[in-house]
Structure formats: C-alpha cells, structure tokens
C-alpha cells in the first residue's frame, strides 16, 4: 500500500514537472492519469522491492560522481585509441565476479559496466558477469574489482 502511494505521488510529480501548468483542469487530468498508471502497475504485479528500489537512492547519490569520473576517464582513453591510425585495440572476453546480494544491485553493476566506454556486459549469470572489453587495460581495470565493491556499498545503503 505504501509502495502504491509512493508510485502515485512520483507520477504526479513527474506530470507537474513536465507540464508546468497549474490550472485545475490540467491538474485533474494529471491526477486521473497517475491513478490509471498506479492501477495498471498494481494489476500487472510489478510494484515490489525489485520494481521500486528506493533503498538504492541514497547510495546512488554517492556513487554517481565516481561513476561519472570513471566514465570520462575511460571515454578519453577509447577516443584516443579510435583516432590513432594503427587502432591499438585488443578485444577480450572476461568474467567478472558479481557478489551483489540483490537483483537491483547486480543490474546496477551490469549497467555501470556497459555505461563505461570500453566495457560491455554480455551476459549476467548467477555469480558473475561476462564482459567484452575493448583493451586489456580496461579488462584489468574491471578485474581489480573497485566498481564491484562500490556497487556492493551502494546496495547496503
């Protein structure tokens, strides 16, 4: 019930943020569509801890700046490699251990890997993630496991 209420208020906030109008007619339309969305999601049975990972949000605020820094660093490296005439890349496929406890944690880890240029998650298994890395350096970077540790911290809040 609490989760339904949270989804309802979030959709109303989204409606107001996107419309920017406050006259009663448009607001009532917003209330109506937020209620419809909440009802349909409830009937689909997707409102649970997995569909609404609210516990991740405080950790995410601490994790995002580090991820952004890491993305910029990897991006400059990949861009430099693309502009070299000799194209110095060594594509490899490695397996990285994923020790996250929950499904949202593992999904965040896989998405962070894909979001960082130079590494793409190919397959998410039970305890590890299959990764395609553009260079041996980016593979070694991921193998050092700092990103995995940070996602585990993010999970524990």
């Amino acid at each position, binding site marked *: 019930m609490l989760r339904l209420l949270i989804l309802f208020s979030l959709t109303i906030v989204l409606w107001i943020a996107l419309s920017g109008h406050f006259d009663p007619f448009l607001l009532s339309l917003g209330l109506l569509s937020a209620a419809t969305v909440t009802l349909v999601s409830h009937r689909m049975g997707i409102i649970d801890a997995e569909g609404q990972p609210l516990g991740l949000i405080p950790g995410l605020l601490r994790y995002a700046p580090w991820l952004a820094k890491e993305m910029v660093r990897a991006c400059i490296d990949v861009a430099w490699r693309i502009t070299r005439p000799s*194209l110095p890349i060594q594509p490899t496929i490695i397996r990285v251990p994923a020790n996250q406890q929950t499904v949202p944690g593992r999904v965040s880890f896989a998405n962070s890997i894909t979001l960082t240029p130079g590494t793409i998650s190919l397959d998410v298994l039970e305890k590890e993630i299959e990764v*395609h890395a553009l260079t041996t350096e980016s593979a070694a970077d991921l193998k050092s496991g700092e990103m995995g540790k940070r996602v585990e911290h993010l999970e524990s809040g």
Partner: protein
Amino acid sequence: MSQALDMLSVLLLFFGVLFILVGSIGLLRMPDVFTRMHAAGITDTIGAAAIILGLMLVAGWTIVLIKLLIVLLFLMLLNPTACHALARAAVHGIRSPWQGESEQQQ
C-alpha cells in the same frame, strides 16, 4: 558570473560534439560489432551528457532545465539497457568476436 556560465556551456558543447564525431568515426573504423558498440558507447554516454549539460547551462532556472534533466536521466538509463540487449543478441548470433588478426585464440 553569467559570462563564466556561457563559457562553460560553450566548452561542454564543444567537447560533446568532439566526442560524438570521434564516436561516429569509430563506428565506421572498428572491425566488428562488439568493438563498434564501444565506439557507439562514447557517443551515447559522454557525448550526449556533455551536450545536454551544455544546454542546461544555457537554459537557466526554468522548466526547460527539469525537462533536460529528465531527458538525460532516460538516456543514461535506456542506452546501456539497449546496448546490453544488443550485445547479448549478437553474442548468441555471431559466437566468435573479433580478437585481433594474429591471435585468434585468447
């Protein structure tokens, strides 16, 4: 103050354009699907984020800022998901990613 913001926005737009062009060149130069995905990743993450952040600095404190923020959030959430789906489909469909001309076994 607003002078500095304008400078920063021009700088961000410049870097965004630079990364998007480099990513597109990579999309043409790379030898196979997976390496091309890395090149496209540059365009889709840093290039898009830099351009949208640059536009946010132009916009100032209006509703446009919120909309740009939501566009950025959606792009950052959806692009890796689409990329992962594509990579997974490709690894099932192709089976042998390019691993350099000399060393096929790795």
